[in-house]
């Protein structure tokens, strides 16, 4: 409770100042409400819906193809994995653009050249991936 008090106190004191954690109180309210709303709807539908389970109904749906029965816990094509990794890497590179973009006018040409080097490395990475066939999905 003490924590809440402190939070609220801060919220009261820093109505106008930006960049404090108090700004996020509405977001917390929002998140809580959205979650509660969604959860309650699911719960209500759970209560209202009929329950007539049968063996066949609870089977995994396989579109009528025998060979697609069974568990789906098996390795999938490594391509998906590759995409995930590439995304992580490139997305993190993108992260660096954000602070740059916000301050970019202040940094001027020198900052631009720095970013140009950064981008050229980025592009080198892409070229490498391209040449290595990591971006080919037609196999």
């Amino acid at each position: 409770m003490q924590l809440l008090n402190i939070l609220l106190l801060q919220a009261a004191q820093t109505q106008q100042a930006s960049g404090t954690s108090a700004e996020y109180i509405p977001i917390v309210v929002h998140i809580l409400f959205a979650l509660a709303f969604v959860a309650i709807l699911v719960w209500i539908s759970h209560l209202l819906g009929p329950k007539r389970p049968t063996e066949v109904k609870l089977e995994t749906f396989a579109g009528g193809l025998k060979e697609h029965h069974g568990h789906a816990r098996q390795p999938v094509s490594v391509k998906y994995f590759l995409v995930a990794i590439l995304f992580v890497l490139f997305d993190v590179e993108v992260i660096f653009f954000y602070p740059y973009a916000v301050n970019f006018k202040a940094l001027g040409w020198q900052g631009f050249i720095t970013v140009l080097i950064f981008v050229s490395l980025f592009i080198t990475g892409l070229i490498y991936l391209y040449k290595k066939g990591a971006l080919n999905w037609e196999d």
Partner: protein
Amino acid sequence: MPVEYYTALSAILFTIGVVGVLSRRNAIIIFMCVELMLNSVNLLLVAFSKMHHAAHPATVAGTEGQLFVFFVMVVAAAEVAVGLAIIVMMYRNVRSIDVNFLNRLKN
């Protein structure tokens, strides 16, 4: 909020991470615990950054703490890339990611 709350939270998260790494047997979970550690550090860095900035409000003191967080994220991403690749490779070879199976090198 006082910085102690952040430090305490960060310490708790870090400890959870460490305990997880030491006690869990699934490589992925271990890895997730490591990420938890890294993120607790991020939290701590930001908290300290705020703290140092509050001590010298007129200066740019404390900015480097937040800067550091960026680099931590980048490195964490790089580690994710490499680590997942290794785990996948392992899984494809031995069909398991339980670290208890890692005893081939013992003898």
